[in-house]
């Protein structure tokens, strides 16, 4: 059963249309990420689901009910804001109780019990009587999360919920979010611009590009089999190489070198997407040759920048392959790791 159905959602601000018809169905209990660069309309879409923004066209259904015309308070949702939006005049416990009080859920004792449970879930029981201003950023974040889950809404909306945290806290919170989602099974729509976050947290990723769905699917699908150049570049920063596919699984690259590709690739012009970590570099092995322009040692990995007959490539190796910058190296790719994309009409600016 679907908990959230969006049909033909369009949104214009003045004359600029920022969402050009979004259709999607989100299954009950799933964790779905809306992923995209800033300005792609992902937050606007979330706000439309919340009812904070009115769609110019289209339908929003929550649990089978058309809520397009309903104000936010009449929708069975809760939302966690990037800035947390904790009410500064209320204590932590009162903040968490707020949605229960406003929605009239339960009597005083039931509310207190649910607040205690929600605070326990985010491990903040000891801070119930503090004011939000007396908490650290990470703690405030967890209060906001407790407040968002306490009313067990049909749809939980998270707007860049982890973006304001530093890297370590963020990883902790990601694990905590997964845990809480597993425990409560709330249908969750998570807006983020961070591809790693989207891939690691969600059952399904909806990739938005310029107000359109570029691709939607499981994290594995979207990572392994990008359908557009945008998807390939955005999720995992793949190299995109224009090529001419010939018969019997050979691609001719811009400089005239040949690269083996799977035999079932359609002949003709194409754009080949090769992930950074799938390029295998060696000083004198097999493969096409490219010049190593620069490399950065990063501990467990080394990042390389290569020049393939005037085309810039990026590669990522484990450890230190022991190559010298400025020299010509060999590149090999497992043909099965190459994704075929339709040829780009014009080159994207780097």
């Amino acid at each position: 059963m679907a908990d959230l159905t969006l049909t033909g959602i369009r949104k214009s601000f003045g004359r600029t249309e920022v969402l050009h018809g979004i259709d999607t169905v989100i299954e009950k209990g799933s964790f779905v990420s809306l992923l995209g660069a800033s300005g792609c309309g992902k937050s606007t879409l979330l706000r439309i689901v919340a009812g904070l923004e009115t769609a110019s066209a289209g339908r929003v259904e929550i649990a089978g009910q058309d809520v397009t015309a309903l104000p936010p308070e009449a929708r069975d949702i809760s939302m966690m804001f990037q800035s947390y939006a904790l009410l500064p005049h209320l204590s932590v416990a009162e903040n968490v109780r707020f949605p229960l009080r406003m929605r009239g859920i339960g009597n005083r004792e039931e509310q207190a019990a649910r607040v205690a449970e929600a605070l326990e879930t985010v491990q903040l029981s000891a801070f119930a009587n503090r004011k939000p201003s007396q908490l650290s950023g990470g703690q405030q974040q967890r209060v906001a999360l407790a407040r968002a889950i306490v009313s067990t809404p049909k749809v939980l909306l998270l707007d860049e919920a982890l973006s304001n945290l530093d890297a370590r806290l963020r990883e902790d919170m990601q694990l905590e979010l997964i845990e809480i989602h597993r425990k409560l099974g709330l249908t969750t729509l998570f807006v983020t611009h961070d591809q790693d976050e989207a891939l690691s947290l969600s059952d399904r990723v909806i990739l938005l590009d310029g107000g359109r769905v570029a691709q939607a699917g499981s994290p594995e699908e979207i990572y392994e089999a990008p359908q557009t150049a945008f998807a390939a570049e955005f999720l995992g920063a793949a190299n995109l190489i224009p090529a001419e596919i010939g018969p019997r699984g050979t691609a001719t690259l811009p400089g005239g070198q040949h690269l083996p590709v799977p035999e079932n690739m359609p002949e003709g012009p194409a754009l080949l997407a090769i992930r950074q970590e799938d390029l295998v570099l060696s000083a004198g092995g097999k493969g096409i040759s490219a010049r190593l322009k620069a490399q950065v040692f990063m501990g467990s990995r080394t990042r390389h920048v290569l020049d393939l007959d005037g085309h810039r490539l990026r590669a990522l190796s484990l450890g230190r392959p022991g190559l010298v910058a400025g020299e010509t190296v060999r590149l090999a790719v497992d043909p099965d790791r190459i994704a075929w994309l339709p040829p780009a009409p014009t080159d994207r600016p780097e």
Partner: protein
Amino acid sequence: MTDRRENLLLLAPGLALLALAFILPIFRMLALSVQGEDGLTGAHFARFLGDPFYLGVLWRTVRLSLLITLICAVLGFPFAYIMARARPRLRTLLLIIVILPLMTSVVVRTFGWMVILSRNGILPEMLRDLGLAGRSFQLMRTETAIVLGMVQVLMPFMVLSILGVLARLDQRLEEAARTMGCSFLGALRHVVLPLSMPGIAVGAVLCFTLSASSFVTPNLLGGTRVQMLAASIYRAVTQTLDWNFAAAQSVILLVGILLVMAPYIVSQGRRHG
């Protein structure tokens, strides 16, 4: 150390002016209020507090000031809210509207009210024509006239005080409240109103103090029959020439205002301390 001395030096002119024009007269006033024919006396205070007429004047001053403050808050809060959420151009327009009364002389403005409120003025005539008021109905020289005139002058103080707080209020708090089940009015009531309390408090202290001590508007709109304390002090100074009694009334007014401000000052001290 020199820094400190320089700072004191910079403070000196202001302090000197305050001492000369404010602190000195206040002490003079305090001295006058307890000065009798032979030494110290509480007779002037006793006279004031023992006379139902003067107690009536005091009570009216307190009552009307509270009423004026309340009306300013009730009208000023939505006004300030709309200003805070309006687009820049509309906000400027509203700002001009709200501070316009302060830009005209108090006498001109009050005569404007006299024209509107007098027996044959626009407002009473309209009310009579609509059958909402009897033939003998009149607004001039009533408490209503004072309240109307004072609310108009004091509104900007309330609106601007609240606006200062609302402008800094994160709009997402309201949105968050909406997603947690508050209607628009519910969000105002449970989020915006409690968070604008500091602004309302500042505005209320300003409105109350200014209306309790105002003289021109109540005097012109209320006349001699409906007196407020400032007018009564003025009469004691200029007509009965009883300066000691005037000083006693002034001390009562000053103490009253300090009492009203005390909770505010204490709460501010606690916040910063």
